[in-house]
């Protein structure tokens, strides 16, 4: 079972203050901490679990500047065999369909059974790249996968639906699966693996290397345009409880008890 797994480096903005620049085109990411996208981390684990069970290879693919190499090496340390990083500033990364086109070009003509992506990126939340990539390659796909059973020429997957329900679907291989968080327990990279990862191949490719021309994937070629970014007003009617942390706790307790909320 030969697998490519696609990973993205994203900022952790869950507790960070996010500021938009004056032009409204970008956010100031200088203070963010970055790591592998959450769902992609599960996709890496799933690829390695499949390799451990069925043999084959796991190749890691990522797009972006050199900053991503630490993350890529970590995926190699966990069990990836080699990696490709596409680094080309001409790619319009705002448009998931352009990203999908580039990633499809990375694997086109290569031998593979499964292409795994995370089902959602924590920064743009498009949930589109994997499914679009399947269409670019003309192969089958399933989105939001939370269980994978590999068979002969086929794969059975459990798609997570709303409300706790799952849908079991059978796909012909090769196929793209977009992996949902919680599908497995991502491992930590073993020390030995981290050492070995430094020696594994990490190829850096440009659009030219992929046989793509700039006007297929740049901003001008996109059918959508980002006009501007802005910070949404959080409309809150909440009563904000003030004071030192312990005071706030006491005030809240009194409101809950005396307000008859318990």
């Amino acid at each position: 079972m030969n697998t490519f797994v696609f990973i993205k480096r994203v900022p952790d903005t869950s507790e960070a203050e996010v500021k938009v620049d004056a032009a409204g085109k970008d956010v100031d990411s200088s203070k963010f901490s970055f790591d592998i996208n959450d769902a992609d981390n599960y996709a890496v684990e799933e690829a390695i679990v499949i390799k451990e069970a069925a043999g084959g290879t796991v190749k890691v693919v990522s797009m972006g500047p050199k900053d991503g190499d630490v993350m890529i090496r970590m995926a190699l340390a966990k069990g990836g065999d080699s990696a490709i990083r596409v680094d080309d500033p001409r790619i319009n990364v705002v448009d998931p369909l352009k990203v999908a086109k580039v990633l499809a070009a990375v694997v086109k003509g290569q031998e593979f059974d499964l292409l795994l992506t995370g089902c959602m990126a924590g920064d743009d939340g498009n949930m589109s790249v994997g499914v679009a990539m399947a269409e670019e390659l003309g192969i089958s796909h399933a989105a939001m996968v939370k269980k994978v059973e590999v068979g002969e020429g086929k794969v059975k997957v459990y798609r997570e639906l709303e409300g706790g329900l799952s849908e079991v679907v059978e796909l012909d291989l090769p196929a793209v699966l977009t992996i949902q968080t919680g599908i497995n327990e991502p491992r930590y990279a073993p020390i030995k693996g981290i050492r070995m990862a430094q020696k594994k191949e990490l190829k850096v490719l440009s659009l030219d290397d992929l046989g793509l021309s700039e006007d297929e994937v740049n901003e001008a070629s996109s059918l959508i345009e980002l006009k501007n970014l802005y910070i949404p007003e959080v409309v809150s009617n909440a009563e904000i409880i003030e004071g030192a942390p312990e005071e706030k706790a006491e005030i809240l307790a009194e409101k809950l008890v005396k307000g008859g909320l318990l």
Partner: protein
Amino acid sequence: MGNVFVIAEHRQGLLRDVSLEMLTVASQVTQQSGGDVVAVLLGSGVDSLADKLAGYSDKVLYVEDPLFADFNAEKYQRVLVELIKQNNPELVMIGHTTQGVDIAPALAVETKIPFISDVIKMEFADGKLQPVRQYYQGKVNANFAFKGEPPYLITLREATLEVPEPSKQGAIEKVESPLKEDIAYRKFIEYVEAEVGDVDITQSEILVAVGRGVREDKNMPMIEELAKSINADICGSRAATDAGWLDHDRQVGTSGKTVKPKLYIAIGISGAFQHLAGMKGSKTIVAINKDPDAPIFSVADFAIIDDLFKVVPKLTEKLKELKG
């Protein structure tokens, strides 16, 4: 402007709420720009759903065929490609749901239709459609524009609006399925229901909910003590169940349970829209989070913007004291 196509979503004989939500947004769009709201229903023996859609549409295109007894993204794609070609709508709306994200990106690639995903609202700028979507889990909004000629395609986020009473009575038009035979490379096998746990959190009167901010499993006893002091059940966000602090049947949100307790205390939950959709119907919501920009505060009645590790133990202590 041309018509707005809304691809109705249904499962196990029931219309999903997002279908009517999309039709409501489609009506808002056509009120400004003209054109009809056209619901597109693919199914087998779902006449009653067609009737329901008609109440929110100017027309219902009903493709009735046993091949659509269950959802299959590939079959939907084949049919939608043809229907879009035949009818040339201005805008096509699909839910940003587990069904929608399985169809829309591939449909966009095949048809080369401009596509924007997870749209939270449709605005107009200079007379043109301006979809708004978000980045960084709701911390940044982005105005987008389509380039080139319609049709355009969006997936619309669910549970962002209230659906009004039906006010239209669209004609239901049965359309012959453009799909003549089944598809071999993707097969629907079955549905699997969620496992039932020891506590049904949809029945709980008081819920203490935990999220990423709780950080690690070893902090859960602090939460359990709070819950015990007020006879609450514990639930959590996706982060909490993925991390294994809680069983999956305790997850609140679109992929988990929808809860409406009397009191919901959200601890260390930032409030991704998937989570908010599952709990915003709670009667009273308390949110404890140190990030003042956390979206959870948009649905809270009481807010403590502070370090939960300082607040929660004191809260438990005081509650015990007051409740005697």
